[in-house]
Structures are given as C-alpha cells and as structure tokens.
C-alpha cells in the first residue's frame, strides 16, 4: 500500500481506497450558493414589538424625569410659598420678638419661584439639594412661635401655681430648698 496517496494523493492509488472514496465522496461538502425559499416572508410583528419597547422606555424615562423635577421643585419652593402666603402663619408679635428672618418672609410679597426663578437665576442642582436640609424660614418661624406660646403657657401656669400656694407656703418651700 502506497502511503503517499493517503498523504497527498501523489503515489499510486489503492483500488480499495478508491472504492471507498467513491462511496463516501457523495456525502462530502459540496459548495453551492444559498437560495432562500420563495414562500418565506419576513414577519413585521417583531419590528412593532421592538418599536413599542423603545417608545415605552422613552415614555417611562420622560415620566420619571417629570416626577423627579416636580418633586425637587416642590422642595425648593417650600420656604418661598410661606412667604407668598402670610395668612398661613398669622403673627402679630411684639417688635422686639420679630427676628430679621421673620421680617424678610413677611415683607417679600411676590418672590420669584419655580420655573420663573430658573429663567433668571442659574441654579446648581447639587447646591439646591443641600439647601433643602437646612430648616426653612417657615419652620424656624413656627418653632419660634411655638416656643413663645409654650413659654407664656408655662409662665402663666406656674403663676397660678405660685398664687395657689400663697406667700407663706412659698417661703416655706424656698427655705426648705435652701436648707436641703
């Protein structure tokens, strides 16, 4: 048997191998051009689905952006809303009680807020988020009012308490306090 034929088909062929080649040769790869079947049609359903998915994503992103922006705007507008509506915190305190912060909030009648403000003032979003952490003037005013009210209430209750005790008992308590 000539092995050269098996290697590069250069030597004398073996008839048995030739027979095998003829039998198995029909099963080998035969290059030919691709022909698409004529009855096959591209379906459009999948294209619509992908378009719908893209549209849904865009709508969702727009909605999320709108909600986020409106939430941030509400937070930013909170202090100025109080200023534009002074009736929300009716206060007629004594002149010495009123702090400069209160004066500012009551005097400013029409502040530039929200979208109008963004037209005129360059706003740093990061900075605005930081300012929301500081208490708003409305909250500070409410705190001051609350403290004033509680101070007065406490003072008057204690006054009533002192008067019910009377001067004799009061002195007795004071003396006990000194001795103790």
């Amino acid at each position, binding site marked *: 048997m000539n092995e050269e034929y098996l290697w590069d088909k250069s030597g004398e062929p073996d008839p048995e191998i030739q027979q095998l080649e003829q039998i198995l040769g029909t099963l080998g790869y035969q290059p030919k051009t691709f022909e698409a079947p004529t009855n096959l049609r591209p379906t459009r359903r999948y294209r619509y689905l992908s378009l719908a998915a893209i549209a849904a994503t865009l709508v969702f992103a727009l909605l999320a952006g709108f909600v986020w922006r409106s939430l941030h705007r509400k937070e930013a507008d909170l202090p100025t809303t109080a200023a534009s509506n002074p009736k929300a915190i009716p*206060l007629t305190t004594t002149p010495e009680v009123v702090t400069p912060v209160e004066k500012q909030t009551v005097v400013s009648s029409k502040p530039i807020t929200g979208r109008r403000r963004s037209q005129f003032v360059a706003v740093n979003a990061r900075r605005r988020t930081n300012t929301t952490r500081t208490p708003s003037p409305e*909250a500070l005013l409410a705190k001051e009012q609350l403290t004033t009210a*509680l101070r*007065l209430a406490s003072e008057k209750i204690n*006054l009533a308490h002192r008067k019910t005790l009377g001067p004799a008992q009061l002195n007795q308590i004071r003396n006990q306090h000194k001795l103790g």
Partner: protein
Amino acid sequence: MKSLLKIPETLLVAALLVTTALTVHAQDPRIQMAHLDHLAAKASDTVDVNIDERLIQLAAKVFNDKDEDEAQIKKLVAGLKGIYVKSFEFENENEYSTADLDSIRTQLTQASWSRLVNVTSKKEGNVEVYVSMTGADINGLTVISAEPKELTVVNIVGPIDLQKLAKLEGTLGIPDLGVGPAKPKTKNEQ
C-alpha cells in the same frame, strides 16, 4: 308612596348628622379669641400666636433631639393639634373690659371643660386654668391671665401634660423660681 316615606327618613338622617356635627363642635377644645383683636390697637405689646397641627409638626422637625430642652419640647408638643395665644400688654390699667373675658369664659362653660385653678387678686389680677377632658385624658387647656395691665389667653388643643408644661419654666429663658417639682441634679451640682 315609597318616595313619601323616604322624606322623613332623609330628614331624620340629616338631623342626626347635624346633631353629631354640633356635638363634635361642642367637644372641640379650641376656643374663639378673634373678638379680642380690637385690643391690639390699645396695647403697647401684642403677642398673637396661631399654630395649627401642620405648623407644630413642621416646627417639631426643627427641634434638635441632641439638645435636652428642645427634645423635651418636641416630646411635649407631639400629638398637639394647635396652640393659640393672644397676649396684650397695656400702658394703663383697665384697657380691657370684663365683656372681653366673659366671651371666653362662656365658651368654657361647656361640659367638656372644667376649671382647675381660679386665683383672684384685686391687686395682681386673676389667673384661671381650664382643662378639657375626654374620659380621663386631657385634650385641651386654656389659661386666662387677667392682670391690671396685661391680658393673656392661651389655648392648647390636644393631649398636653401639665406637669411637663410647667417644668418648661427655666428652660425657655425664664428664670426658675424654685416652685414645682424639683429638677434632677446634674453631676456638677452633686
């Protein structure tokens, strides 16, 4: 026929609703003090505080929990529905009339209100403390302090601890006169 029968039923339901609303309104521990506003013109100093539940909650957020006094106030105001104060300080005596006070006292004659303290003094004036009760709980407080040159009305709506409120004296910039429950001593004092 059926529609005719329905009319008295509707009237009955409406009457029931009106009665319920009136009863609820009658039990509301908020008192009206707007009629005292005319005194502001005569007064040399006026304090007018109107804080509703929303503002109380807003203010409570500002109180610092790390500060002992502020934490105490925050705890005290939790659950309150409103605090209303009108205080007038006059240059001269007898600037307000008894009618001004009577209109407040009339509101406090309702069943839920009871007078806790009434101190009368011709020289120093009167102090009255009223509490509104629902069962065993206080749901409202009114203090009327009528001094010769000063008139103060405080109305607190909601559950309030009187003892804690009285303790606030000394913590809010008012000197403690040593009356009332003793404060726990600090380490330095011991």
